[in-house]
């Protein structure tokens, strides 16, 4: 008599194995789709940021907003988030691949990615996979013009930024009774700088600004020396500088202004660089004066004050900025939606985000709400001025905490 083990009773052939594997796969697939994902445990949020590469500094600055969120959400009674960090390496294709990997690893919602190109790539993946994506920072308008159902942006588009910037400038000129009559417009020649230049040229004629743009100078954003650019700008005899730059070029230009003994009446910046901590630390007293027109926080809002206090405690000496605020708010949107949806089901989360109405927030404006396209179109920009190593909000008046100083103090009279 042949002894058989219970397992050997079923003879496994290649055909039966294939059929079994197929059935198991089908079961697994339908099982995943049909299981109702009720709220249990933290929501898995994939945070995509450029933590290395050219934008590494900014990506790591955004990360500070991520680090502050858990303790503050707990105090606000919001559910816990399980953060899954990913590095886009400042590369669009890497951003796309990391988004796919995060989703495969179980991310139930995505947040990121500072840059328009990277965010656009992630948006495609999120939409394809049906996973909500909340953009922290990216201004290219087309991202929320694609008819996406799972993509949301709590950050102003480039046209919104520019329109607000010119409106804020008018407010400042009226408040101080001083205004330049001519400006030189200097901008980086990268994607951001060029699109802003096109936007400014399109929007500028609609505003009855008191100044003329006498010269436009495009320069290499990665340049090591900007002496020629500044010499050319100085030679125009313009009263002021209108800037669209990044951080390193803002520092280089300021140095050249001092060395070439040119103190413009004011530097009006329509982008990053001039308000960042590294700019303030590197240039000290010489960093005072420039005004930046940027998406910002309302220093008079309670949550903004709490976030600022938490940042000061966790990262002493770091001024709160756009990167912290909008990354924090993107996670706030996620936690708020998870609380209301009571489920991690992607569709339920997307529906909850669509009906977001957070009035206790940080950024300027009535609060966080999204229109049919997934865009928060109620956000307002601020004008901030560097003074004494601090960033003071000088416009709009409703969200200001200081009066503007115009003209700025000449570089050779700063002690």
């Amino acid at each position, binding site marked *: 008599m042949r002894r058989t083990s219970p397992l050997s009773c079923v003879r496994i052939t290649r055909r039966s194995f294939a059929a079994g594997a197929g059935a198991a796969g089908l079961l697994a697939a339908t099982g995943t789709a049909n299981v109702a994902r009720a709220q249990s445990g933290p929501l898995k949020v994939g945070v995509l940021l450029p933590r*290395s*590469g*050219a934008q590494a500094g900014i990506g*790591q600055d955004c990360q500070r907003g991520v680090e502050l969120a858990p303790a503050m959400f707990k105090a606000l009674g919001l559910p816990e988030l399980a953060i899954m960090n990913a590095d886009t390496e400042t590369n669009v294709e890497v951003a796309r691949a990391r988004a796919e990997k995060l989703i495969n690893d179980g991310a139930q919602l995505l947040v990121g990615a500072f840059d328009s190109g990277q965010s656009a790539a992630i948006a495609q993946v999120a939409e394809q996979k049906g996973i909500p994506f909340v953009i922290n920072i990216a201004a290219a308008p087309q991202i929320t013009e694609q008819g996406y159902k799972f993509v949301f942006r709590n950050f102003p588009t480039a046209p919104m930024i520019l329109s607000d910037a010119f409106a804020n400038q008018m407010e400042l000129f009226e408040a101080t009774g001083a205004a330049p009559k001519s400006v030189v417009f200097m901008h980086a020649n990268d994607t951001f700088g060029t699109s802003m230049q096109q936007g400014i040229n399109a929007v500028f004629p609609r505003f009855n600004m008191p100044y003329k743009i006498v010269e436009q100078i*495009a320069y290499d954003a990665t340049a*090591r*020396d900007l*002496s020629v650019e500044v010499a050319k700008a100085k*030679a125009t005899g313009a009263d002021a500088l209108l800037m669209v730059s990044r951080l390193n070029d803002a520092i280089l230009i300021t*140095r050249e202004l001092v060395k070439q003994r040119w103190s413009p009446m004011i530097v009006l910046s329509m982008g990053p660089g001039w308000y960042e901590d590294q700019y303030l630390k590197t240039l000290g007293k010489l960093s005072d004066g420039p005004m930046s027109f940027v998406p910002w926080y309302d220093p008079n809002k309670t949550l903004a004050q709490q976030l600022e206090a938490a940042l000061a405690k966790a990262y002493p000496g770091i001024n709160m900025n756009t990167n912290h605020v909008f990354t924090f708010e993107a996670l706030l949107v996620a936690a708020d939606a998870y609380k209301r949806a009571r489920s991690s089901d992607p569709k339920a989360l997307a529906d909850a985000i669509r009906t977001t109405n957070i009035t206790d927030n940080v950024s300027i404006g009535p609060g966080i709400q999204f229109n049919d396209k997934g865009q928060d179109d109620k956000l307002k920009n601020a004008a901030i001025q560097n003074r004494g190593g601090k960033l003071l909000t000088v416009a709009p008046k409703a969200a200001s905490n200081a009066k503007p100083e115009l003209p700025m103090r000449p570089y050779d009279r700063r002690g």
Partner: protein
Amino acid sequence: MAAEVYLNVAVSGLLTGLVYGLMAVGLSVIFGVVRVVNFAHGEMMTVAMYLAIALFNSLGLDPLVMAVPVAGVLFALGYVMQAGLINPFITRPEYSQFMLLIAVAIIIVNVLLIVFGPDARNVQTSYAFDSFLLGPLIIDATKVYAGGATLVITAALFAFFRFAPLGKAIRACADNYTGALVVGLNVKRLYALTFGLGAACVGAAGSILVLLVDVTPALGPALTLLAFIIVITGGLGSMVGAVLGGLLIGFTEAMAGLFFTPSAKSMFSFGLLVLVLLFRPQGILGKRVL
């Protein structure tokens, strides 16, 4: 535009070009003798820049003064690299030398990223914002000091290769490898010394350059590319050619930025490179290889 603007920009371009020249001299020296193209050239320079910053921050020593000790450290690094890593590759195909040095470059960038992070760093000397007023000319004081240091270092290097017995021995290796072996020169040691000297130039240039340029780990590849443009224009293997190439590139970029658009500055330096390659492939002061 007033004539003084053109004059200011021309002087600024030439001074910047001088520092570019020193940066490229090391590359030219190494290739001229060892016949290895150092693809980690810019990355080694960022190491020197970080070293100068660390010394400035910890001891408060001026980078111009620190150019000598930083050059010493880079000399040691270059000597060890040549003796321990590159020598076995001397007789191998060129592509394996390229791959080795590209690997070294990538390792340096990533180590710097881990150690120093991605933020730009610089030094703030007491004269960082000074400028000299000479009639209508406003000349950047830092560039004047950096340009002066470049001239001194290049002259010293030139004198070493021209008059010192060791310098003559290195030149002998470069001129006739077999002949150098026949007369009993220790070629491997001389190669390591040469690589060390080239690296020392990089060290001195890095220490000076940190006065003008903020450093990030990502700066290395950009500096490598710039050094290649300069030495190919001036003549690969020629020290004077490297300085001349630097001056030409600095001047061309400055004037192109003024006459045309500043964002097209690099286009003009590449254009100059193409012209040199078309009409004088060996570079302006390079020797024709038959």
